[in-house]
């Protein structure tokens, strides 16, 4: 059976090869351990699930009490003509299941009456208290809408763009210092000189710079230029006195600006350290916060104010031996630091979190915590984010007006038990009814903004339709957010996303 497992693993690696390159083995593992619930297998719903089933989510459960209608078959790829009249959850589960045999598909036949606002608010508060992420997704005519509702989502691997390397050249640790000492740039042969890693070159010339500049770091542009010049002077000269072609020195000069960035803790991470979750560790505290606290202890007690060493260095011009020695110095220090953190974890709690500390320490500089506002906060007159709405409505054709229109059609539904314009013969009268809803919404929240009549006409014309191609877009975007949340990699949006399919524009708002 070990062999069978091995073969399964190998064939999965092959099937998932193209995505493992994005979120790695451990991201894939999180995905395969996840179970998601879809409420209502609409076109948008099954599109989202399709995009989660293909990459291999562990399990899904569809909750839906509707019977499949002809309309459903018209815009939903996972419902077919011969499923008309059957339970929609069951029919969709069967076809979605066909996409990937590694996924467990389940369904529950249960009617979720879709008084949109009411249901979302109720469901939202239940999930909020259980701290289960809730993603509300909706395709309404040519508008796509997503709202992420999660009290707290912690991200270890946020994959920041353009992250700086953690080289500690401003505060070299003892092992690094010794290693730098072991180099003698003046005394070494030509071959070794031109194969010395740039990190060593910068470190060596920093020592020189310190002695000449009263132990001050090169800070501004002018000083950094002077420092580059100092390195440039170190390039070997030929017998004729012309500088040799030493690429490693050129590389050192190129990297001066980023290498001289002082080692410090970013304000984002500092905020996380100072959060109350980090102060009050109990037996209920999630692993993320236990480890954050342990890292904080490390910073204060062992790290001299710095985070654990990340342990990775970039590729550079050097011969293998020199490169590997240098790499190991950083790597071993990172492992040492991680083991100190792990001792803190142990002393903080008996039980240790699931995440391995090396991964955590490596990413300590990029920790992120996403806290959304709850739906109740968004909907309540007292806590509504009036400023965001009003300022975004400065541009009358921005995406905010679409948000207000979605809120207005829900109001329409509450009053009339149907959406505006669903029957062609009612479109005209619905326009004035919808306008009343828009006005009452604006009044209730005391929003002093203007919604153009054109949008009211437009939304009546949509008749709550769900065009497949818009659902396809939303299905892709929503599944991507779900994967971010499940893998705890990359930072999900916070908290409202609107897509305008007419202009192909999108926006995110914090509501």
């Amino acid at each position, binding site marked *: 059976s070990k062999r069978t497992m091995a073969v399964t693993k190998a064939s999965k690696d092959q099937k998932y090869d193209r995505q493992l390159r*994005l979120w790695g083995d451990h991201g894939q593992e999180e995905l395969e351990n996840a179970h998601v619930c879809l409420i209502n297998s609409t076109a948008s719903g099954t599109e989202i699930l399709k995009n989660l089933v*293909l990459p291999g989510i562990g399990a899904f459960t569809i909750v839906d009490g509707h019977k499949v209608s002809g309309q459903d078959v018209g815009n939903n790829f*996972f419902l077919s003509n011969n499923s008309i009249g059957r339970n929609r959850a069951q029919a969709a589960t069967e076809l979605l299941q066909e996409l990937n*045999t590694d996924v467990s598909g389940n369904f529950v036949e249960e009617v979720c009456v879709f008084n949109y606002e009411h249901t979302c608010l109720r469901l939202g508060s239940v999930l909020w208290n259980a701290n289960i992420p809730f993603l509300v997704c909706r395709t309404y005519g040519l508008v796509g809408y997503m709202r992420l509702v999660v009290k707290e989502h912690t991200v270890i691997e946020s994959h920041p763009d353009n992250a700086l390397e953690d080289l500690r050249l401003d505060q070299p640790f003892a092992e690094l210092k010794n290693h730098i000492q072991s180099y003698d740039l003046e005394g070494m042969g030509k071959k070794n000189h031109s194969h010395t890693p740039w990190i060593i070159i910068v470190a060596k010339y920093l020592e020189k710079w310190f002695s000449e500049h009263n132990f001050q770091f090169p800070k501004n542009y002018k000083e950094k230029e002077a420092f580059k010049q100092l390195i440039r002077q170190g390039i070997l000269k030929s017998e004729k006195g012309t500088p040799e072609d030493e690429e490693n020195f050129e590389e050192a000069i190129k990297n001066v600006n980023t290498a001289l960035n002082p080692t410090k803790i970013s304000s984002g991470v500092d905020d996380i350290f100072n959060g109350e979750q980090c102060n009050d560790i109990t037996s209920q505290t999630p692993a993320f916060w236990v480890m954050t606290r342990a890292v904080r202890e490390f910073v204060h007690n062992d790290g001299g104010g710095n985070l654990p060493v990340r342990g990775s260095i970039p590729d550079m011009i050097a011969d293998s031996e020199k490169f590997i020695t240098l790499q190991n110095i950083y790597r071993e220090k990172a492992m040492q630091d991680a083991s100190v953190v792990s001792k803190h974890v142990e002393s903080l709690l008996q039980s240790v979190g699931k995440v391995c500390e090396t991964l955590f320490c490596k990413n300590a500089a990029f920790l992120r915590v996403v806290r959304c506002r709850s739906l109740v906060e968004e909907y309540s007159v007292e806590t509504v984010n009036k400023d965001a709405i009003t300022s975004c409505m400065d541009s009358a054709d921005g995406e905010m007006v679409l948000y207000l229109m979605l809120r207005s059609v829900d109001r329409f539904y509450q009053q009339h038990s149907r959406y505006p314009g669903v029957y062609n013969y009612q479109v005209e009268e619905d326009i004035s009814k919808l306008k009343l809803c828009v006005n009452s919404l604006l009044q209730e929240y005391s929003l002093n903004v203007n919604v153009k009549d054109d949008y009211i006409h437009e939304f009546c014309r949509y008749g709550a339709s769900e065009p*497949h191609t818009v659902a*396809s*877009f939303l299905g892709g975007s929503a599944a*991507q957010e779900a994967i971010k949340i499940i893998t705890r990699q990359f930072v999900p949006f916070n908290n409202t996303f609107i897509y305008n399919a007419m202009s192909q524009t999108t926006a*995110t708002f914090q509501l």
Partner: protein
Amino acid sequence: MVQLVGSLRKELADSLSACRVLVVGAGGIGCELLKNLVLTGFKNIEVIDLDIIDVSNLNRQFLFQKKHVGKSKAQVAKESVLQFCPTANITAYHDSIMNPEYNVEFFRNFMLVMNALDNRAARNHVNRMCLAADIPLIESGTAGYLGQVTVIKKGLTECYECQPKPTQKTFPGCTIRNTPSEPIHCIVWAKYLFNQLFGEEDADQEVSPDTADPELSWNPADTEARATASDQDGDIKRVSTKDWARSTGYDAVKLFNKLFKDDIQYLLTMDKLWKKRKAPLPLDWLEIQKLVPANIQQLTCPQEVTGTGLKDQQVLGVAGYSQLFSRSVETLRSMLADKGDGAELVWDKDDPPAMDFVTAAANLRMHIFSMNMKSRFDIKSMAGNIIPAIATTNAVIAGLIVLEALKILSGDVEQCRTIFLNKQPNPRKKLLVPCALDPPSANCYVCASKPEVTVKLNVHNTLVLALQDKILKEKFGMVAPDVQIEDGKGTILISSEEGETEANNSKFLSDFGIRHGSRLQVDDFLQDYTLLVNVIHCEDLEKDVEFEVVGDAPDKAPTPPSAQEDKNVANGNKDSAEPSTSSKAPAEQDDVLIVDSDEEEPSSSTMDVRMESGGHKRKLHDAETGEASAKRQRLDQPLAADEEDDDIIALD
């Protein structure tokens, strides 16, 4: 389609069911697109793809299942869609769109063509066919989390080739053969070696030491030393690598010692090369075997994948790779033998023994040249130019394509946009960045009214065959060019008719009186495309450069200011010989901040929602200073390729 009538006006819905559209490619985007088209109400769809289904497609190409592996993508896609939507009328072609059968007349059958391709050659070709047939084209691509959609309409917008695309980075032959300095050089060498041993031999893919290295100025003493070495090393010059390997019965140990010991010792005799470089260290099979721990056989046996973590992501060490080398040579030898006499293997990154061979050979060479060895996983990325691909991005892009299609069919091409999909909302909180379409470039060598181009080359050593293959076909994307010299006599240099001008192939351009200032008229009948080529004779082209197109120097193109240099861009050139130069994640274009230029009215007319414009509609292009140039940088980066393949290049 009850639902759609709600948001699409009736005339549009009717025209969807009447019109005929072509989808080129049934891969990641293609599958999503076919689904979206039928569910939006398109009834008459033709789809063409020459590929067959691979296991690694199944994580996103949802019309295919495990049982379909090995079958035609186009055919299976059609059958799967029909199962769900039996009323659609779908025609599938398991064929290359570059096949002459698909001529201008064929393209004229369609209201609209949508590309869902993965390589630049086919994109160039479809671009020309659509220009010739005057049919609107929607072009698209994805790479990981990034994607792009654009619309091409003759005379109204830029065509796919209006902006020069960065050319593939190529490596000088002597870097590959003599002085590799980066892992990619060793990987390219290993792929060449695969073809030399098991595949189609190609004179441009030599792997043995290159004695014509320009760095070696002639020196009688050197030559003598090399002659001596040459006697000992199995006669690398006189028999082809393949013949020699065959004569040994593909003996893995003999191959190992030739490639990693004798050839390296031979390289060491070219001591000029190692004055400034670290000299390579030859490996000896027997010496290495002493290092092999008893359990290594198990460790590297492909079936024994156990525990957590990918076996692929481990680096095995010299001993491990020597074992892997010998095992993969043995497997490939028997595969070749099973295929019978004269058979050839084709390198494929998804074929385990072929990938094992390249992993082992590349790593051994990296070790010899003092580079850090790499895992099979990383080597596969570099050797296969793998672009990560996921369902979500393709779903988003296919959704956008159909919306652009609806605008075109409503007669609102002006409302169409080039749309970029970011990895995450940009600093302006936009996930999508729509940009107005640019007008055609007057200097475009494809869509200008009289396309013209100037090429620098040495007329005395450029063969007619090189003009045809490397310049006209590879560089200018023609399929079957005819060339006439404008010498007053109308001399036919190249004819696309078989048997007419083959004799010219091995002659130099100067043999036909072509000199500085000569003009060549080049026609591609299939593409309905005529290009005038001005020849500039030039004797000082850089080493290993055969020709240069004037005004087309991607190296000198402005590069974005920040850390762009390390970043890769997917460009969709599957057919070019050279692969990626970096294993880093591709196409991280986000740091090129695009000024979002589309803050105007919802383009409502598209969907027949008449809305009064506030009168502040502006010409997007000159709306804000700096906008055009920011966008230009982005556009210069060519369309990304969906999936596989073979399309990453470094933009540096």
